[in-house]
């Protein structure tokens, strides 16, 4: 039996319905994958090779675009290799290792695995190294160091990274002996207050792992009190009046007001504590 030719309008409608059905099918398949628990989150299970390539490529292209605006200063003037080494020893060697030095167990069980930096430090431009160190890489074990190391310290670390691939085991060890009493510098502040930065700070100091905070995405946590509607509170931790000055001091050093509090001292830099206190007080 021959059908009559389908009119144009009908074709468009059928195509549209077909597209919607396809989208729903895709969404259903995605939901099925998520809710069935079939996707394994184990770090012992390898990626598919293609997945790995895609993620690597995505990182490189993202860096190309995002690190573009970074102006690299004259490293010979601004950066000190010894300071960079001190930072590397304090924060990086545990996951990345060093010439002749194996990474600690913390760096051995990760997926993706922290790279050995001999190759990338040689091949990547300083701006890319700086960007990754400063901002971290999401959904990997690479933290952001922007709120833990000063700008000078970060550039010093980059300068060190640029030298590191050319060091022998003995040179690296000798540098360690020399920089033993140098501390990796903490951020000195001097940034103006902004709501965005304050939110990032809460996340970078992992406040949101214990406290629910407006504007910061995080787990539904009940470990500490929620920080919503902060200005209305009468007390901080039930012991001191809730003022901006007291709050900044509390954030920077909780044990001063309450020696047995379970809130840990997160080594919060004073300016960051003030910005976070301001954020909480300017919430409605």
């Amino acid at each position: 039996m021959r059908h009559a030719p389908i009119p144009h309008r009908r074709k468009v409608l059928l195509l549209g319905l077909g597209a919607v059905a396809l989208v729903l099918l895709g969404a259903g398949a995605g939901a099925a994958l998520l809710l069935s628990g079939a996707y394994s989150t184990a770090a012992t299970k390898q990626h598919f090779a293609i997945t790995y390539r895609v993620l690597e490529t995505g990182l490189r292209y993202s860096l190309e675009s995002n690190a573009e605006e970074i102006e690299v200063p004259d490293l010979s003037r601004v950066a000190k290799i010894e300071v960079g080494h001190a930072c590397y020893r304090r924060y990086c060697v545990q996951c990345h290792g060093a010439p002749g030095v194996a990474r600690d167990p913390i760096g051995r069980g990760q997926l993706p695995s922290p790279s050995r930096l001999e190759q990338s430090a040689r091949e990547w431009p300083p701006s890319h190294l700086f960007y990754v160190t400063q901002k971290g890489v999401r959904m990997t074990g690479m933290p952001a160091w922007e709120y833990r190391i000063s700008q000078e310290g970060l550039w010093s670390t980059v300068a060190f990274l640029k030298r590191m691939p050319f060091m022998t085991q003995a040179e690296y060890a000798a540098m360690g002996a020399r920089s033993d009493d140098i501390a990796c510098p903490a951020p000195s502040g001097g940034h103006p207050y902004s709501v965005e930065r304050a939110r990032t700070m809460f996340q970078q100091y992992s406040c949101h792992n214990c406290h629910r905070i407006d504007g910061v995405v995080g787990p539904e946590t009940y470990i500490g009190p929620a920080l919503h509607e902060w200005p209305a509170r009468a007390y901080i931790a039930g012991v001191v009046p809730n003022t901006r000055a007291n709050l900044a001091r509390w954030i920077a050093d909780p044990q001063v007001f309450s020696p047995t509090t379970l809130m840990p001292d997160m080594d919060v830099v004073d300016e960051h504590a003030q910005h976070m206190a301001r954020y909480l007080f300017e919430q409605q």
Partner: protein
Amino acid sequence: MNALSVARLRTMSIALSAWSALLGACGEQRDYRPQVRGGDAQRGQIALLRHDCGVCHAIPGIIGAHGRVGPSLASYGRFPHLAGKFPNDPELLVRWLTDAPSMAVATAMPALDLDEQEARDMAAYLYSLE
């Protein structure tokens, strides 16, 4: 029925059956729920109202409890900590309710004139808050 509509129906029915199977697998499970020995949550609710605990604390289910001097007690059953210093253990909570300053000398929460049974009942109500 033409071939196209049959195919569409088949697709939809597969999607629907998969979806409904998955919905059954939803939902969080909580293994640990604190239990207060000898405490009755309903009596506790009345006790919290009678003692005006809401003057300092916001407590769901208690009329007029919207104080902001102390922390909100919403979802108290899920708090891992008591007063930011102790594990949220039922016996510690009962002690805290009657004599907080003996456990934390600088706290703003006073020692209250509650008998042990009232404190147990109040604790039972607080732990029932999800």
